[in-house]
């Protein structure tokens, strides 16, 4: 009988790098800040706790399934993905690398929630991810997914998504 390899927490974190947001495939679950904890029991069972971004985000179920699949395929004997609502996820948990990747993909990254003018009803100044111009206008507070707002650049005239500050 084969000896079961004990997959370490460090290795699991490496594996989670491969689990991408299904809607925004350039950013992974660690960069999104949705992985709250990784525990490995003596039996080798991994318990991953994630937290949803927006309450109704349908991508969370897919992410949980993808996490399970990725770890099981790598040889983790048992995987449990737990969901926690508290503390509430905030866009501040998106890493700087994650924000850079969003911008490169064409999505304006969220501003820091300390700069919370967005939630207070004041318009943030959002740079166009295509041409960099700050001459932009918001078309809709509710964009194509729960986390995004729709903007338009008045210089290059391209529309773009903005990841809303939460």
């Amino acid at each position, binding site marked *: 009988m084969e000896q079961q390899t004990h997959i370490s927490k460090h290795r699991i974190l490496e594996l989670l790098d491969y689990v991408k947001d299904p809607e925004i495939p350039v950013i992974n679950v660690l960069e999104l800040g949705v992985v709250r904890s990784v525990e490995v029991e003596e039996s080798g069972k991994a318990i991953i706790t994630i937290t*949803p971004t927006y309450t*109704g985000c349908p991508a969370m179920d897919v992410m949980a399934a993808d996490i399970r699949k990725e770890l099981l395929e790598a040889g983790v004997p048992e995987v449990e993905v737990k969901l926690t*609502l*508290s503390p*509430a996820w905030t866009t501040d948990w998106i890493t700087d690398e994650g924000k850079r990747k969003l911008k490169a993909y064409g999505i304006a990254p969220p501003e820091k929630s300390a700069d919370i003018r967005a939630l207070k009803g004041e318009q943030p100044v959002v740079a166009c991810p295509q041409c960099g111009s700050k001459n932009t206008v918001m078309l*809709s*507070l*509710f964009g194509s*997914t729960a986390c995004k707002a729709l903007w338009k650049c008045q210089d290059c005239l391209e529309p773009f998504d903005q990841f809303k500050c939460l």
Partner: protein
Amino acid sequence: MIDPNPMEQSALFTYTLRLADDILILSQRLGEWCGHGPVLEEDIALTNRALDHLGEARNLLTYAGQVEGKGRSEDDLAYLRMERQYTNVKLVEQPNGDYAHTMVRSFLFDAYHLPLMQALTKSNDAQLAAIAGKSVKEATYHLRASSEWIIRFGDGTEESHQRAQAALDNLWTYTGELFETDAVLEEMTKAGISPGIAAIKESWSKTVDQVLAEATLKRPTDAFMMTGGRKGLHSEHMGFILAEMQHVTRAYPGVSW
């Protein structure tokens, strides 16, 4: 499965279910705009908001099922209850009507929902506080969006102003129900689980006054207020809403994605 009599349930279950049903039915109504929005951006915005509401409903229904302790899942509660077991207010059942009606209905609800969620983050019930912690930031965006539409309509053209005022006048009678008290609410408030409803009403009223003033719309006078939703007595629209919402589940029992 015979549905348990809601009156025999614990106050926490009943209270959680009320929160869930309000937002579930509103979500269902907003979802009806899918493909019918006045402009593409609004079609997307409405279904986006419906999805936020649905997420909150899912969290609340799941928790209600756990509190009840009889093994009912979020799906069992959403799809398998009969009309008289739903405890939502009548406001959220009202038809979408024209865009002014939909926006006014959302505004009147959002202005109540935000202070409620803010207060619930301090609830003595940890799970309700956690759910509220998630919903409160989204609720801020919702109220902002509805308020902006009310202002656009009210301080817009003569037609948009008339339609917004008509919607307000029609829907005002459904606002009283949001602030009703009964034994369940009193028990929850005493336990520090729900906030006192008077404070929520005050916040709601202030927001309504502020936004209507900027929209140059007249706040209707309080007259007869519709009631009964919390006891499972709904308007004639509820049956149709549930028929559409439940029929796939009921046609294919036990099926899952």
